[in-house]
């Protein structure tokens, strides 16, 4: 039972971090109809910025704040300089141009910070476990991540459902032409949305840096997962991104434990040992293909 509880929390923690990436990605995708493979690079850059600031100031809070601000500015510069030219282009051009940005970002980080992974440590107070229930320890830092993730999800919900900017964003995601027609300042709106998405990436990068490692290429695996999330959730939908992220997080985490365990009860151990991990690793892709096949618009489509 504790195993399920702990794995559920792990899945939630993973899912919420995925959500931070998926939220920005889905907005850019939904509003600007833009596939951005370089989204994961912003996550990487955010993590490197956090590592840099943490290394020079020693303050975790400062690192997170600085990385957020820095990456947001960078993201907006990127939007103004390059991405803006791609909105009207076909998806193939977008894929390749942002693939190019991804290569450029990777090599730039390698030149600036070297090839070796940087390992950060969480603030000392959070480095140990918390006893949630008698005998049930859970890492304090992961709890913090869950808290931050939930807070951002709530904030986003309020922002999108209660503010004028949010209304514009929603309108844009469900009907781009309408948003263009409202066109007070669509260009500025796009830039702002992009900067905001970049900041969310940086938050994920800064939060996960101490838990994982800060390294070149760290954004790619999580980028693919974020794509899976938004396709499952429905492109352009924040609600879909949250649901999709938690589904992917929980399915992936539970699948890794439960699939090999349950296979062992029905199959010989060698077969189960081979099959289990492979099934677990493709589980979310099967899920995504199934969603695309039966509900191509995703679980929570933004467009009517």
């Amino acid at each position: 039972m504790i195993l399920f509880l702990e794995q559920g929390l792990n899945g939630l923690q993973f899912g919420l971090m995925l959500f931070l990436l998926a939220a920005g990605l889905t907005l850019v995708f939904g509003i600007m109809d833009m596939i951005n493979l370089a989204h994961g690079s912003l996550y990487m850059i955010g993590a490197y910025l956090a590592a840099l600031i943490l290394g020079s100031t020693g303050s975790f809070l400062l690192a997170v704040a600085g990385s957020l601000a820095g990456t947001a500015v960078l993201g907006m510069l990127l939007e103004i300089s390059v991405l803006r030219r791609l909105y009207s282009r076909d998806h193939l051009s977008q894929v390749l141009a942002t693939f190019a940005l991804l290569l450029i970002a990777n090599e730039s980080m390698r030149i600036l910070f070297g090839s070796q992974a940087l390992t950060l440590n969480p603030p000392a107070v959070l480095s140990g476990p918390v006893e949630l229930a008698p005998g049930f320890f859970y890492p304090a830092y992961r709890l913090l991540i869950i808290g931050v993730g939930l807070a951002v999800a709530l904030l986003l919900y309020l922002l999108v459902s209660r503010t004028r900017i949010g209304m514009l964003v929603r309108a844009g995601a469900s009907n781009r032409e309408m948003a263009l027609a409202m066109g007070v300042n669509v260009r500025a709106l796009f830039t702002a949305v992009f900067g905001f998405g970049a900041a969310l990436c940086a938050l994920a990068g800064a939060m996960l840096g101490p838990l994982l490692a800060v390294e070149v290429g760290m954004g790619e695996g999580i980028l693919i997962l974020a794509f899976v999330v938004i396709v499952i959730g429905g492109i352009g939908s924040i609600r879909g991104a949250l649901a999709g992220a938690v589904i992917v997080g929980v399915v992936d985490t539970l699948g890794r434990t439960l699939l090999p365990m349950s296979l062992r009860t029905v199959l010989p151990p060698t077969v189960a040992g081979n099959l289990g991990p492979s099934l677990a690793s493709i589980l979310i892709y099967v899920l995504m293909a199934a969603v695309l096949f039966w509900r191509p618009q995703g679980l929570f489509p933004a467009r009517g």
Partner: protein
Amino acid sequence: MGVQLDHPLHAAVALPLLAALIVFPFVVLAIDEPFYVVLASRILIFALVATSLNLLVGFGGMVSFGHAAFLGAGAYVVAILMQHGVASAWIAWPAAVAVAALAALAIGAVCLRTRGVYFIMITLAFAQMVYFVFVSLKAYGGDDGLSLASRSVVAPGIDLNSDTLFYYVVLAFASTGFFLFARLVNSRFGRVLQGIRENETRMEALGYAVHRYKLGAFVLAGATAGLGGALLVNQNELASPGTLSWTQSGMLLTMVILGGVGYLWGGVMGAAALLLMEELLAAYTIHWQLGLGLVLLAVVLFAPNGLATLARAAGPGGRDG
């Protein structure tokens, strides 16, 4: 901006190029640089694979982000058969093509129900599935990949382990494949594909069974990539998950756009340009991918039709083609 449906293969271009490729090993061996035979084989293999992807992306309008799956499937079939003692190219290579074609048939049947962005995403998802399946197959090397004991056996006296001989085998496949491709795009089938790229709904209303033609192209391209995989695994003597990774799919797309989407020579030019650029830049810096990224970005932003068009644009009376 108009588009031509005819893509003539000029003998005045193709034959001298073929002749140059035939004498190429003599030249580099004469100056004692056998490494370039290996490099040229690699370029030819990728030219074939990129051309097959160009058939999908450039001629059929299907932006597949999972073409590496078929490349890798072909490679793994040869390696797995070799592990089970089947070294004959006569069995292993057709098997690689057949498995890749069947995989393309199954994956295509599902993916082609979707369009646009969703097609890009679902092909990516399937490629990731194939990738993770092979990564977790410990019996076939898992993350390590699967080494070949030697190159495939063709016939007594023909030893593919000779890089030069292998080059000629690759050249034979690549040039034949390219010739067939050139026939294909100008045939009725090729016209239909291009029509689908231009206006799929209209093609359906004209009475074309659009899905069938798209699936046909998907299977052909997958099978060709499978052949490329069979050649590549012989070249590398290794089938590795890297061949299946999504960045490999990205690199194949990069070749196509560098060379020219929807141009006869696009795949060939793109493969040559990318691999030579890698060779050239890698000699100067380990950060060669920075250069690649900048070039790719520049091409997408400023020369969206790729290298193949530069030649035409330069020509007097240059036309769209």
